[in-house]
């Protein structure tokens, strides 16, 4: 009896350690909100002006993974993210990635341009409006960020500040996912050619 109690206790201890280990593993896993391809909706199209007055459409970005960030110069949490996005632009632009900032300042370029210069933003910024915000669910709070896949579909949405690593994991997942899907297409094509 004594032995069986010890055996049960040891068993429970092992189970506990196992569960704790699992839990730790779950905690360590990077958080990602990337939806499966089948659950993604097309990002609404828009035509907005950049700082040079040039019209920018989302269609221009088809084939790229896009981080579409609604922000404003009066938004403190947005300012935390902006250097991260500049970093992503630099690191991943050659792999088919782009950041597109949508500034929601009602005062327009008069306040946006000085901020962009001061904060060394290296990605494209366009001036948003309520119509476009409406297309994206209203964008009542900032930052609101959509990560789009190469087909212009919304793969993830973030309202408020999230961690840099969360964004980076999603970007990587979409860049690599697209690559493996391209590889799959290439394999299928070469198989067809062989047959």
């Amino acid at each position, binding site marked *: 009896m004594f032995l069986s109690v010890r055996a049960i206790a040891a068993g429970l201890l092992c189970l506990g350690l196992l569960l704790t280990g699992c839990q730790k593993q779950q905690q360590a896993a990077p958080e990602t909100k990337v939806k499966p391809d089948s659950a993604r909706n097309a990002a609404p199209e828009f035509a907005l002006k950049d700082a040079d007055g040039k019209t920018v459409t989302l269609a221009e970005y088809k084939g790229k993974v896009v981080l579409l960030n609604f922000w*404003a110069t*009066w*938004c*403190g949490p947005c*300012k935390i993210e902006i250097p991260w996005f500049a970093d992503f632009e630099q690191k991943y632009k050659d792999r088919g990635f782009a950041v597109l900032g949508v500034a929601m300042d009602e005062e327009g370029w008069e306040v946006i341009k000085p901020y962009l210069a001061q904060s060394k933003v290296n990605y494209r910024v366009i001036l948003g409006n309520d119509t476009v915000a409406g297309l994206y669910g209203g964008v*009542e*709070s*900032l930052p609101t960020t959509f990560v789009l896949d190469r087909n212009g579909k919304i793969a993830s949405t973030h309202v408020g*500040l999230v961690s840099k690593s969360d964004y980076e994991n999603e970007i990587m997942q979409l860049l690599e996912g697209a690559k493996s899907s391209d590889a799959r297409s290439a394999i299928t094509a070469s198989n067809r050619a062989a047959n």
Partner: protein
Amino acid sequence: MLGALLLPLTAQQIDFNSLRAVVRLTAPEKIAAARNETVTVDVVAKLKDGYHVNSNVAPTYPLKLSLLENPAAQLLNVVFPVPKSHQLAGETLSVFDGEFRLKLTFKVAQNAPIGRTLLTSKVSYQACDDRVCLRPDSIQLKLPLDIRN
């Protein structure tokens, strides 16, 4: 939000669970004053936990309190509390948080109609917590004023 704008009460029925509803205003249920009298009213603002609004001296979207135009009364002055400093993204912001009082002073017009008048105060603000900022907004609060001779 529209409900709050139309509510003829001195306290707003704000559901703090709603994302945009972060500021609740209350004021005395009844204000009594004579024609030509100067009146000071405390408007109490309570913010949703974790949120702050730009103070009245903040450079962008400062907190403002005004009276909508009404021939019965004219706004003379608003006294704001001392702002707090809040650090975010390497900047020091001038903010109000928690619960604070705004002292609104107005003068009843000499020819104001005797009886009940509803003044409307308007508070314009821009609120954030450390994760998210809400777009600039305003709310209104009715102030029932009983004017006597």
